[in-house]
Every structure is written in C-alpha cells, then in structure tokens.
C-alpha cells in the first residue's frame, strides 16, 4: 500500500469511525489477554479491522498508544513472521492483600518456580528436573491438585500456549526426552532479579548466595530498565 493510497483510504472514514475502530481493537485485545492468549494480527484483521484494512497501521498505532497511556500496558510483537502480539505489563503490580487475589494468581507462583529452576540451570532444563522440583514442593504432576487441577497439563499446555514456557523434544534421544526453556512472554515480562527474590523467599535464602545467577540477573535487570 503506497502512502497516497493509505491517505485516500483514510479519507473514506470519518474521525468518529476511526475512533470507534480503535476502541473495538483495544477491547478485542483486552479480552484475549484475560486468558493470556497471544493475539494474531490475522485475527485482529478478520474479527475487528475488516473493511478498515487499508488504515490498519494507523489504527494499530493508536491502539498501541492507548495501551501505554491509559492502561500502562505494552503491545509487543513476539513473532515478526507470524505477526503475533502479546500484551505485557509495564507497571509493577501491587504486592499484598489490598485486593482479593484473582483466582489465576496462584498459578503465577507455580510458573515462577519453574522459570527460576530453568534460569538457575542455565536456560534449558530436562523435563524430569522440573517434575522432581515440583514433587519436593508437594506438587505431584501425576496427581490432581486442589488449586491447579492437572499440574502437568497446566505446565505443558497452558503455560506453553500462553508463551511463558517452551517445551520441546531433545534431539537424538531414544526414548524421546523433553526439555523446557523460557518462552517469549516470560523473556519480556519476568524480571530475573524479582524471580531470584521470589525463590529466595520461598526457600528462605538470599539471592546473592547464587552468585552466577545473581550477577546475570542484575545485568539483565539493568539492561531491561534502559530499554
């Protein structure tokens, strides 16, 4: 689309119509984000943009600005080929019991444990190590948990679908083995320093006791703040 074509397309819509379309896209993405489902640009086009496709770029620019200015959220494209977005939080959530915990929140504790184990093991970890760690915390992946239901399913399906974790085959293993890595959403949303603090609280240790990980976490935290 040339810029003159885009300009002619824009002239076909009133300012109110464009405002309304921006609001619709914001709503669509917020609803998807409730379940941390990554958003495909194709879906935005198909379900919301529809006839406004020639001014897609303008609408999306305003959508991004709205998320930042009104909600403190950032719309990030995590897959440049497939054009997949996630919405990440730029603000630090409030700790404590000011407001009742959302039912989904205990799962974040489960996720943090797994992300921290992966991080402390250098970024990739065999599946068995995760299950063994969870067992030590009385979260047996083979049994139904009161809070999480099927722990293995939450970890290998839900967290993967939400792109907090990557779960894949280890090549050239017989019988086949699987490994976990951090997912794209975790890379963008989770502070490694906060992760170490969390685990320190959980195991009652000082993060500085894990020297290598703490150094990397500090460096990672510094660089992420500057972006």
């Amino acid at each position: 689309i040339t810029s003159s074509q885009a300009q002619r397309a824009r002239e076909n819509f009133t300012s109110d119509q464009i405002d309304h379309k921006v609001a619709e896209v914001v709503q669509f993405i917020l609803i998807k984000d409730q379940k941390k489902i990554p958003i495909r640009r194709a879906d935005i086009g198909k379900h919301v943009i529809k006839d406004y496709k020639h001014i897609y770029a303008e609408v999306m620019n305003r959508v991004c600005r709205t998320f930042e200015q009104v909600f403190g959220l950032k719309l990030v494209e995590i897959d440049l080929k497939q054009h997949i977005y996630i919405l990440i939080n730029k603000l630090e959530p409030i700790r404590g019991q000011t407001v009742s915990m959302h039912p989904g929140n205990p799962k974040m504790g489960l996720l943090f444990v797994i992300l921290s184990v992966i991080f402390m093991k250098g970024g990739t970890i065999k599946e068995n190590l995760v299950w063994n760690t969870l067992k030590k915390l009385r979260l047996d992946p083979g049994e139904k948990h009161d809070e999480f239901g099927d722990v293995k399913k939450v970890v290998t399906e839900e967290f993967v679908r939400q792109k907090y974790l990557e779960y894949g085959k280890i090549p050239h293993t017989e019988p086949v083995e699987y490994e976990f890595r951090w997912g794209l959403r975790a890379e963008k949303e989770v502070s490694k320093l906060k992760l170490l603090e969390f685990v320190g609280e959980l195991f009652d240790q000082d993060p500085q006791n894990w020297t290598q990980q703490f150094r990397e976490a500090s460096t990672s935290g510094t660089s992420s703040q500057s972006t």
Partner: protein
Amino acid sequence: MSRQMGDGHRLFLQNMMTNGIVSAAQAGMLHKKCCELHGGQEKIDDFINVVNTHLQPLFMHIRKGMSEEDGQEHFVLVNMAETDITRMAADYAENELELFRKIMDLIVESDSGSASSTAILNSADKLISKKLKKKEAELVLNKFVQDKWLKEQDGEYTLSVRCIVEMEPYMRTIYQDMIKVCYVCHNIALQCQVCENPSCEIKVHLPCVARYFRARSDPHCPACNDFWPHEIPEMQAPQSQSSQNLPSS
C-alpha cells in the same frame, strides 16, 4: 483540559480490570497505595474521574453500585460497548451462558429477588444448547459465584452488585416493565420490600428502607403515605462512609 493519566491511575485501572469489582473500602486502600507508589494528591472521586475521562473513548467506565444486601458501595468496571451478556463469552461455554440467562430469569421473575439452587439445577436439565448434569451445573454455579456474578447464601442465589451494574442495559432491554427501581435510590430493585397498597406497590431496597425509616416508630410509605407494614431492617453504617474518612496521603 482534563488531568493527565499517570502511572498511579494506570495501576488502579489494572487492578479494576483484574478484579472487575471492588468494595469502596478496597478501592480506598487501592487508591492510597497507587498514590503512595506513583505520587498523587487528589481524592478518590477525582482520581476515578481522571480514569473515567480516559476510558470514555473506549466505552468503558468505573461505576458505583450499592449492595442490595448490606447497602455497601462498590466500584465496578463496566464495559459499555457490549449490550448483552456475550461479554461473559470469553469465560463461559454456550450452555453455561444459557444457564446464566435462565438464572437471571428466575431471579427477576421471583418476588424474593432470588432463586433456589433446586430451581436452578432443574433449569440446567432443560438447556437447549447442551444439557448440564447436576454435578456440572453445581460447578458452574460455583464459578459464577467465584467470578462475582452471583452471590449465594443458604442455597439461595442472588445477582451480585457487579452483575446488576454491568448487566443493567441488558436487563432493562430483556425484562422491560418487570424491572422496577427502588423509590429511594432509583437503582434496579430485586431484593426489596414492596408497598402493599395495590395502587402504589413501590419497591425499596432493604438498606434503603433502613436508612429512610431510621428512628421512625410509625413508618409510612414515602409514595402513598399508607402504613408501611414491613419490619424495618437494622443496617450497620455503610463501609463507604468510613472509607471516605481514610486519610489520603
């Protein structure tokens, strides 16, 4: 020129999005915390007005609502772009939504403003989209309560503050004249007392009855002046009054 949105307002809004509804006391604590973390001096009503100004182009609004049970004020994040309960579709299956509509029917059509678990579970057996077994229906009911759409007490289910505030346009459209408002506060009245004068029959919320008739030994209907025969409930002072007295830094 309206006030700019700061990180404190954004953080408050994020919490409203996560919770859907908070009590006035919770909102007060949240407001205080957001101002401490990100700076801010305005009172909570002004603070929320700033948020609402920026939500307006997005057809969203933080609205106040009163609990029909105890008169306590709440803040609800309302999505005005949706005109029916398809907004719940992100969280529920088609037959679960159908059950929810039936529950609303039962509650609106009842004199008590509530529906028994027995009546609800009987409805679950007659769903058009896909029947729910009794055990499944019980789980769905629990989910409605957990997500703050319904309240349950002793096996009786009522519509929550969140539901009444968010679903008001839908309810007015679907139920029309069956929906009555409280004579005192002018909000939808489901759990209420009714004047027994056949030519009057106004409805008044229990908390509104308590406030209106407070310290009167000989209560009369505010509309037709007939004797008000119902027992005047005792209500403790609404939480919102004490929350407004919380010091805001």
